[in-house]
């Protein structure tokens, strides 16, 4: 019986933590998804900044993971926004990286933390350089 109670308490605790965290983050996510990035995260430097090979690898990853919703041409499909806008290409790399890592679960953008950090930076590099890359 004690074990059962412990399990129930643990589950309830997590549910409570979850709802508390959701409430806390609601205000931030209503403002702007990417604006929710903490300043320290947004200031992180991209280790592949301007690297054409990383951008090519990023394009490969983008086609595998992101193109279904955002389109191969980055112009968005359905509710998923276009990624060739100034808002994206001019955003700090760290902010894009943070957004890619956390997603916006409320609006349907999944968290891509399952991809290794290096691959997420490669996608960020591609998004920043996509306009300058030759069409393939």
């Amino acid at each position: 019986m004690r074990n059962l109670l412990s399990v129930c308490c643990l589950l309830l605790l997590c549910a409570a933590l979850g709802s508390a965290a959701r409430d806390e983050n609601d205000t931030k996510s209503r403002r702007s998804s990417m604006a929710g990035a903490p300043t320290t995260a947004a200031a992180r430097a991209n280790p592949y900044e301007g690297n054409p090979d990383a951008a090519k690898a990023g394009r490969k990853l983008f086609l595998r993971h992101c193109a279904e919703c955002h389109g191969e041409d980055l112009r968005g499909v359905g509710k998923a926004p276009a990624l060739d806008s100034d808002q994206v290409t001019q955003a700090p790399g760290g902010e894009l990286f943070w957004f890619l890592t956390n997603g916006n679960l409320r609006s349907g953008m999944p968290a891509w933390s399952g991809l290794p950090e290096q691959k997420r930076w490669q996608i960020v590099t591609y998004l920043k350089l996509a306009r300058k890359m030759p069409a393939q």
Partner: protein
Amino acid sequence: MPNLILGRRRRAPQPVPSPFPSRSWKLVARAAVLAASILIFCGGAWAQGRPYFVAYNHHMEEPGALEISVNPVFASQAGGNDFLATWVELEYGAKAWWTTEFYLDSQTTRNESTLFTGVRWENRFRLLWREHWINPVFYIEYVDINDADKIMKDVVGHDSEADHATPNDIARRERKREIEMKLILSSTVKGWNISENIVAEKNLTNEPWEFGYAFGASRPLALAARPERCVLCPENFVAGVELYGGLGDRYSFGLKDTSHYLAPILAWNLPNGTTLRVSPTFGLNDNSHRFLLRFGISREFGGFGRRVANLFRGKKP
């Protein structure tokens, strides 16, 4: 399960004229080949799916995406016939924070028969909006199977190898309806995924709560992608290990009379979107099967929900 055969004379396995592989075995093999062909040759997309067979991490199915997978497990059976149990899994991303899955279980036992053993409906909910050091996920599953189910998707309570020695024609008579809950805690550290699952399962008849655990650790063989398309490059492989077992029940919590398994895992993400997984699994004590061999083939169909919705709206899918 042992209650089923208490008070009855246990029947010895009947001699069967055609030894393994039997007709039913061939039927299962054909179905598996057909399913594998469909999954390999249909167009698909890449997921960031879990490499584990038993443990779960906090990565959810992408919203609107459908992943179909076939997962056979071959087991050696002491005091009975070896078997091949298979589950077919349909995983759908209902929301970015909610994944729902439907399972169809079946098994073929050597020199006995091939059975459909039941269904499961599973739901996973992410509890936090953002990534944290530890990411909790709440899992709840309804299980409607018979006692001949042998897929061993979870090991809980006092589950042991002896449970699977009961002949199919006896085991199939007992139906089990269960609710299973898990608290999934998962972290990502320097390319590694570390997952811990705490399992609580309740048979809806008057049976005690049973408990179990699963741990998993995995890492891609390369963390960065190459610029060119490649099939055998390390970035496409994920290696890991999982450890799982029972923790007794409400009246006898602990490791006594429980079974435990250790399983290395290798997953290979093919460029066409198919994922192949293999896991040789070793029993760690006398209550465990000595050896299991798990396989998995899965394919994700991105935008499935949107295409279906468009069909009903009369738009081009």
